């Protein structure tokens, strides 16, 4: 926020609508910027640029039953936000439909393959035996839904990517709660590649001694190092983001004995945990795009 002027910069989500939205009709929208002044979008106004970081704070809907009064209230807020997101005079770094599509791992992998980018062998099936035949007796499972959930007592459960064996899955309906199955890749290096438009920045993490999912190790979150060793990966990451229609992405790649492989893309993923100068450079690139610099 320090990189953008207060005048003309609006921060909006599904929670602060009451403070930010002054007026909306089919032709125009009037919002309050961070300086407290009113700004207008619409047919008679200068076009604006926007970046969808997230639509609501994490946990804003925790404990709200589907179909309840509370859910109806939250849904109403999202509907208004959706109307603003679709204001034709707004140009988004990542428009909302490509944003949603790009969050789907299968869509990501299809796009990567079409772009000639290497990916892990991936499948969804109700048969552990079929998965084992295609992926090997040991493979990893990744949720197609969220990677965490809350228990009735308020505690949280999370999912790490770990090897499983087909025999571990006997009796489990794999399509009741669909997960993505992937062949295990023994990574030598993990990469986090951030793209903004045609620019890319890469940080790497030595995979030695780390589990399949490096997030399990607290120290791994703080030991990524800036690198310029992977220009081809950066080029491919930009191509993939462009093909998906996302102006910003936070991507996970890995390097094994056969070279780079694309693993995951988050069109709203984090970057501030990465080392400098990446963290600041990405922030500046985003601010520059928003400000039309």
């Amino acid at each position, binding site marked *: 926020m320090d990189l953008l002027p207060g005048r003309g910069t609006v921060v909006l989500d599904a929670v602060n609508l009451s403070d930010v939205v002054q007026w909306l009709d089919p032709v125009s929208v009037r919002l309050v910027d961070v300086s407290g002044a009113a700004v207008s979008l619409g047919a008679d106004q200068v076009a604006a640029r926007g970046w969808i970081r997230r639509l609501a704070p994490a946990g804003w809907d925790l404990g709200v039953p589907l179909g309840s009064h509370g859910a109806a209230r939250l*849904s109403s807020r999202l509907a208004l936000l959706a109307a603003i997101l679709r204001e034709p005079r707004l140009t988004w770094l990542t428009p909302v439909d490509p944003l949603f599509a790009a969050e789907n791992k299968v869509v990501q992998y299809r796009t990567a393959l079409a772009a000639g980018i290497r990916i892990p062998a991936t499948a969804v099936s109700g048969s552990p035996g079929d998965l084992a035949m295609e992926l090997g007796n040991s493979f990893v499972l990744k949720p197609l839904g969220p990677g965490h959930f809350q228990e009735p007592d308020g505690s949280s459960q999370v999912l790490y990517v770990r090897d499983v064996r087909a025999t571990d899955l006997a009796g489990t309906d794999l399509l009741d709660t669909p997960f993505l199955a992937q062949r295990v890749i023994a990574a030598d290096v993990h990469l986090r590649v951030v793209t903004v438009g045609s620019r890319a920045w890469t940080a790497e993490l030595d995979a030695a001694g780390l589990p399949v999912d490096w997030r399990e190790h607290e120290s791994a979150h703080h030991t990524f190092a800036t690198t310029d060793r992977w220009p081809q990966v950066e080029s491919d990451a930009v191509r993939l983001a462009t093909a998906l229609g996302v102006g910003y992405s936070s991507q996970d790649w890995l390097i094994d004995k056969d070279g780079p492989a694309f693993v995951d893309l988050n069109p709203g993923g984090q970057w501030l945990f990465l080392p400098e100068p990446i963290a600041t450079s990405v922030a500046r690139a985003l601010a520059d795009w928003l400000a039309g610099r």
Partner: protein
Amino acid sequence: MDLYRLLSVPAPAGATPDELAASPRQVEMPGMTNPHPRPTTQLTESIESTDEERSGALLGSVAP
């Protein structure tokens, strides 16, 4: 038993909802092309996460 029950483990002590979720969208958007919930890609996000990371649509410069 579904795969969430089979594969999940307790979250680290003290993990906040914001730390657990990396998705920019937590609920389905009415009126949108059928979106799907975003899997979390990171359990523990930036320890330097700031308020702007928790905000939603960020609009850039708009002429007054």
